[in-house]
C-alpha cells in the first residue's frame, strides 16, 4: 500500500504540471470572453514571484506552469479573436458596400425602365383614342421608340450577365486590325457622319504585338468607348483612338477633346447604370462603361479614365490588357 502510494505520488509529481496545465487551459477556454488581455501580464508576474519558492516544491512549480500555460493560451486566443474581428469588419464593409451598390443599381434600373414604360403607356392611350391617321401613326412611332429603348437596356443587361457566365475565348488578336474595324464601324454611324476620328498605331516595333483574348468582346469594349466619345462631344471636337505597348501590356486609349467629365463623377462612371451630370439627357443604357470595365477585367487587365474640364481639356479612357 505504501509502495503503491509512493509510486502514485512519484507519478503525480511528474505529471501534475501537465494535469494542472490541462485543467487551467480548459478553464481558460470558457473564461476567454471575460479575460482581459492584462491577465497575461499578471500571470507572468506571479510566475516570477513564485519561481523562487518553487525550486524545492513540485506542487508550486506545477501551479506555476499551469498559470503560465493559461497565460499563453489566453494571449494566443485574444490575438486570434482580434484578427477574426478585424477580418469580420472588413467583410462587413465589403457586404455593406455590395448591398449599397445593389440598392443604387435597383433604383437606377427602376428609373431606366419607368421612363420608356411611361412613354409606351401614353403612346398606347393615344393609339386607342386618337382619331386622325397622322396622330395614330405618330403614336405608333413613339411606342416603337419606347420599345427600342427598353430592348437596348435589356440587351446590355444580358451582355453583363453573359460575361459572368460564359468563358471568354483566348486566341491571338491583331490589335491594329481590330481598332481599324471599330473606327470604320464608328464612322459608319449615320448620327456621327463627318466626325473626325483618327487612329494612331506606332510603326515600331513592327508588326504591332499580338494580344491573347476574345476579339468580339474587345471590339465591343473599344466600340463602346469610341461611341461614348462621339456621344458626349460636339461636331467640332475630335476623337483619337491609339494603341501603345510597353513590353508586358497593350494599352488602348480613346481620347476626345470634349468638355470633360466632372471630377465627382470620375470614380463612379464605371458603375452599372450610373449617369454623370452631363449624361442624364443623353441616349444610352447607362451600362456601356460597366461592360468595358468587365471585359477588361476578364482579360486580366483594367480600365481607367483621366479627364479635365479646364485647359489642357479633354478626356482619355484607357484599356490596359496584359499580353499573356
Amino acid at each position, binding site marked *: 500500500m505504501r509502495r503503491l502510494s509512493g509510486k502514485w505520488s512519484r507519478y503525480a509529481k511528474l505529471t501534475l504540471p501537465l494535469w494542472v496545465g490541462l485543467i487551467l487551459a480548459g478553464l481558460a477556454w470558457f473564461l476567454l470572453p471575460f479575460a482581459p488581455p492584462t491577465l497575461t501580464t499578471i500571470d507572468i508576474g506571479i510566475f516570477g514571484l513564485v519561481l523562487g519558492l518553487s525550486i524545492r516544491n513540485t506542487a508550486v512549480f506545477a501551479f506555476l506552469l499551469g498559470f503560465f500555460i493559461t497565460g499563453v493560451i489566453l494571449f494566443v486566443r485574444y490575438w486570434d479573436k482580434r484578427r477574426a474581428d478585424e477580418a469580420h469588419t472588413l467583410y462587413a464593409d465589403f457586404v455593406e458596400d455590395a448591398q449599397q451598390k445593389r440598392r443604387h443599381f435597383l433604383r437606377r434600373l427602376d428609373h431606366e425602365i419607368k421612363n420608356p414604360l411611361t412613354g409606351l403607356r401614353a403612346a398606347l392611350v393615344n393609339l386607342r383614342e386618337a382619331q386622325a391617321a397622322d396622330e395614330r401613326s405618330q403614336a405608333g412611332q413613339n411606342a416603337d421608340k419606347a420599345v427600342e429603348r427598353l430592348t437596348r437596356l435589356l*440587351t446590355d443587361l*444580358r451582355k453583363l450577365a*453573359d460575361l459572368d*457566365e460564359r468563358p471568354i475565348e483566348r486566341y491571338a488578336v491583331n490589335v491594329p486590325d481590330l481598332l481599324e474595324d471599330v473606327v*470604320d*464601324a464608328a464612322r459608319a454611324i449615320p448620327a456621327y457622319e463627318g466626325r473626325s476620328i483618327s487612329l494612331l498605331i506606332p510603326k515600331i516595333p513592327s508588326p504591332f504585338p499580338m494580344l491573347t483574348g476574345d476579339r468580339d468582346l474587345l*471590339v*465591343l469594349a473599344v466600340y463602346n468607348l469610341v*461611341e461614348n466619345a462621339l456621344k458626349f462631344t460636339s461636331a467640332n471636337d475630335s476623337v483619337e483612338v491609339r494603341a501603345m505597348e510597353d513590353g508586358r501590356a497593350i494599352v488602348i486609349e480613346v481620347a476626345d477633346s470634349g468638355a470633360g467629365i466632372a471630377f465627382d463623377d470620375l470614380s463612379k462612371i464605371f458603375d452599372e447604370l450610373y449617369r454623370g451630370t452631363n449624361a442624364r439627357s443623353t441616349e444610352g443604357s447607362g451600362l456601356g462603361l460597366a461592360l468595358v470595365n468587365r471585359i477588361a477585367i476578364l482579360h486580366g487587365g483594367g480600365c481607367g479614365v483621366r479627364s479635365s474640364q479646364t485647359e489642357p481639356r479633354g478626356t482619355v479612357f484607357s484599356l490596359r490588357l496584359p499580353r499573356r
Partner: protein
Amino acid sequence: MSLNRSTILLADDDPTIADSLAPFLERAGFHVLVVSDGITALDKAQAHHPELIILDVLMPRMDGRETLRRLRKLNIWTPTILLTQVGEASERALALEEGADDYLNKPFDPHELLARIRAVLRRARPGERSLSTAWLLTAGELVLDRRARRATLAGETVELTPKALAVLEYLMTHPDEAISRERLLDVVWGWEYPTGTRTVDTRMAELRRALDDDPSEPRFIETIPSEGYRFIASVHGEG
C-alpha cells in the same frame, strides 16, 4: 399557298405573349393552337399533328427542352422553333443539341418569327428528320461531328475557334438557305455586336481559310451580295 393553312402549335405560359402572337399568326394565315405548358404541348402534338411547333423554354410542368426531347424520343420529327430566354448563354448550343430546327431570342419582332416559321416550313419534308436533329453532317469531304465539336476535311481535323464552328454548324443545318449576318449574330453570338456584320465576316474569313474555300469559286459557302451567306454543298445527316 398551302403553307398558309398549316397548323402551328404554340406553347408559351405567358399570356401577354401567347395572346398577342396567336392572332398575329392567324392573320398571317396559319391555324394556331395555344397551350401553356409542356405536358399539354406533348399531348396536343400527338393528337393534332401540327406542321410546326413553337416552344418556349421556361414553362411550368415540363420545360421546352424536355418537351422537345420527349417529342423526338416518341419519333415525332415535327419541325420545332425554340424561344430561348434572355441571359442563358449555353442555351443556344443546347437548343441545337436537342434537335430544334431554329431558335429565336426573346425579345423578338413578330415578323422575324414569321420569317423563321416560313423558312422552317419550306425546308421541312413531312415525316422526315431534319438536319437539325442529326449528329453527323456530311457535305462531300467535309464532315461535322456535332457531339464531338469537331470538323474534318478529307479526314484531316480542321482547326476552328468555337464561334467559327458554331457558324459552320448553323450553315450546315440550314443548307441552301440565304442566311443574313444579323441572323448569324443572333443565333451564334446571342447578342448583336456593334460592328456586327464585320464580326461575322471575320469568322467567315477564318472558316473559309480553314476549309480552303475560295470565295470566288466556293465549294461550301457562297456570299450573297447585300444579303448574307448560303451553304451550297448538299448536306447529308446521320445519327
